[in-house]
């Protein structure tokens, strides 16, 4: 079920009413109901892969208990952790990377003159697999590091894994934040619910009005890059930057907003990333739940092992972490290059300053404090990010390289994609609103502003009007493919 579908807007009120009006008194019933609702939400897309989620939940639930039982026996603890990691990564590896590894393997043999039969399986990628496997893996990892204790309540755990607002595209919640919320009574709070509803509205605006309206133009530019003039290729890349941001942060806003309606508090996942003043700052503000996951479970263990190599060690850890991040996003060399470039952009930061900031901080984002005088830094960081998007958006690595070549040197210009003026105006509106609201959790968080009530409600109605009037043809959320 998509957040931007009619089904969802029938599903949501039904779940909301049953949850608060009929099951209010008993958290066990509430949790069980949310679990069933979440499975229905997922089954709407494909019921066959529900078994994978259930399997993943049972696996890490049991292994979590086993690791805790053996917390003073280092060897047994490691043994159980390895079982969890191996099975989780094998499932992810099979569904996501099988064909990629097979074809890369065949290509490698091709280049040394040995020709192998092309062989690939028709594997469908189960939606959300990269998100929920990371969530269950972090549970077992945190127990093994004595950071959290396992729960004995299977229903609460299974709901933590499958909770529908964050099941298919995150935020990748940690057990330390979300699991305890399933174990205690939730209270309905009108203010928080209103805040949630306005965050959902903002998410829908970003997705339906901005991202989906950018899509046709971006598809045209990236689909026929060899025919387009330089300026169009550059504009197409910049518009894609706003498309993917509006798409993914819009999704996240809806997820966080829906969670608020049910009395849950998710961690912030975006903190106005395009106002970042360097690449490290960008990664503290973009897809925070993933970058802090990679920070805790990939970067930190590597950097600790490499610690005697000083800055070289730290750079290697950063670089490897970004290659993993690339691979997480997709099974393709273009994603690996995308990650590698972000890693390389850390070089000047690591080697020029004595002290600098991290890939991401697990502390959660602080208020965005960008100033107008930071503009040159903001623009140069945004430019670097846009360069990497060419690799991210192109179908293959070859396409990305040819796209870049076409920017500098192009003989066969036969057309130029055109963009609607309204799309450009909406992008400008987004940037202005977010700049003014950058110290808030999201752009439309206007409840606390000291402005007239009627004016406030007019803004809400205006956003609703935009959604219905300028809403584009429905598109899938980009991050579903990861």
């Amino acid at each position, binding site marked *: 079920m998509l957040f931007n579908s009619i089904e969802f807007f029938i599903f949501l009120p039904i779940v909301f009413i049953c949850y608060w009006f009929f099951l209010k008194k008993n958290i066990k019933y509430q949790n069980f109901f949310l679990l069933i609702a979440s499975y229905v939400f997922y089954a709407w897309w494909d019921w066959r892969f529900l078994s994978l989620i259930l399997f993943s939940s049972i696996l890490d639930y049991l292994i979590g208990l086993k690791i805790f039982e053996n917390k003073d026996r280092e060897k047994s603890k490691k043994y159980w952790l390895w079982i969890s990691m191996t099975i989780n990564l094998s499932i992810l590896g099979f569904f996501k990377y099988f064909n990629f590894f097979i074809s890369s393997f065949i290509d490698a043999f091709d280049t040394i003159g040995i020709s192998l039969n092309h062989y690939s399986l028709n594997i469908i990628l189960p939606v959300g697999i990269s998100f929920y496997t990371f969530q269950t893996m972090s549970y077992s990892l945190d127990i093994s590091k004595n950071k959290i204790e396992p729960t004995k309540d299977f229903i609460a755990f299974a709901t933590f894994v499958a909770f529908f607002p964050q099941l298919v595209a995150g935020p990748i919640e940690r057990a330390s934040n979300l699991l305890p919320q399933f174990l205690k009574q939730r209270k309905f709070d009108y203010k928080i619910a209103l805040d949630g509803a306005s965050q959902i509205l903002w998410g829908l605006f970003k997705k339906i009005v901005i991202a989906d309206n950018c899509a046709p133009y971006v598809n045209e530019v990236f689909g026929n890059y060899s025919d387009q003039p330089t300026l169009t290729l550059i504009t197409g890349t910049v518009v894609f930057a706003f498309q993917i941001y509006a798409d993914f942060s819009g999704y996240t806003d809806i997820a966080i907003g829906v969670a608020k309606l049910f009395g849950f508090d998710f961690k912030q996942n975006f903190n106005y990333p395009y106002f970042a003043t360097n690449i490290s700052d960008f990664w503290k503000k973009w897809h925070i739940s993933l970058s802090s996951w990679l920070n805790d479970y990939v970067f*930190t263990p590597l950097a600790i092992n490499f610690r*005697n190599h000083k800055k070289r060690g*730290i750079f290697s850890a950063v670089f490897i972490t970004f290659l993993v991040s690339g691979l997480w996003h997709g099974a393709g060399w273009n994603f690996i290059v995308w990650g590698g470039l972000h890693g390389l952009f850390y070089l000047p930061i690591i080697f020029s300053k004595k002290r600098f900031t991290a890939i991401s901080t697990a502390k959660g984002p602080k208020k965005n404090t960008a100033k107008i005088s930071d503009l040159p830094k903001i623009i140069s960081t945004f430019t670097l990010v846009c360069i990497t998007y060419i690799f991210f958006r192109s179908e293959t690595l070859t396409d990305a390289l040819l796209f870049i070549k076409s920017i500098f040197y192009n003989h066969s210009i036969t057309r130029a994609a055109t963009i609607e003026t309204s799309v450009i105006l909406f992008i400008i509106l987004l940037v202005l609103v977010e700049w003014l609201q950058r110290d808030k959790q999201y752009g439309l968080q206007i409840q606390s502003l000291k402005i007239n009530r009627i004016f406030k409600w007019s803004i809400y109605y205006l956003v609703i009007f935009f959604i219905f009037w300028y809403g584009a043809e429905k598109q899938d959320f980009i991050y579903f493919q990861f």
Partner: protein
Amino acid sequence: MNEYLNDLSNLFREVLENDDITLNPETTANDIEEWDSINHIYLVVEIEKTYQIKFKSSQILEWKNVGDIVSAIIEKKS
């Protein structure tokens, strides 16, 4: 414990370039702005150098607060 806390506070002040740091056993990375994941590595390196000890990597990953760091140092020194 206290004598280590004083020494560590000095070490943290120097590495993180913040003179306002005063550690107690419950202090965590959340309490100190500059204590992020990369500076954490510098802190570990500096602690190992100062006390001439070598931690196991897996042990470092289990630290939750300054108290855990002090216990690890005391354990290594004894």
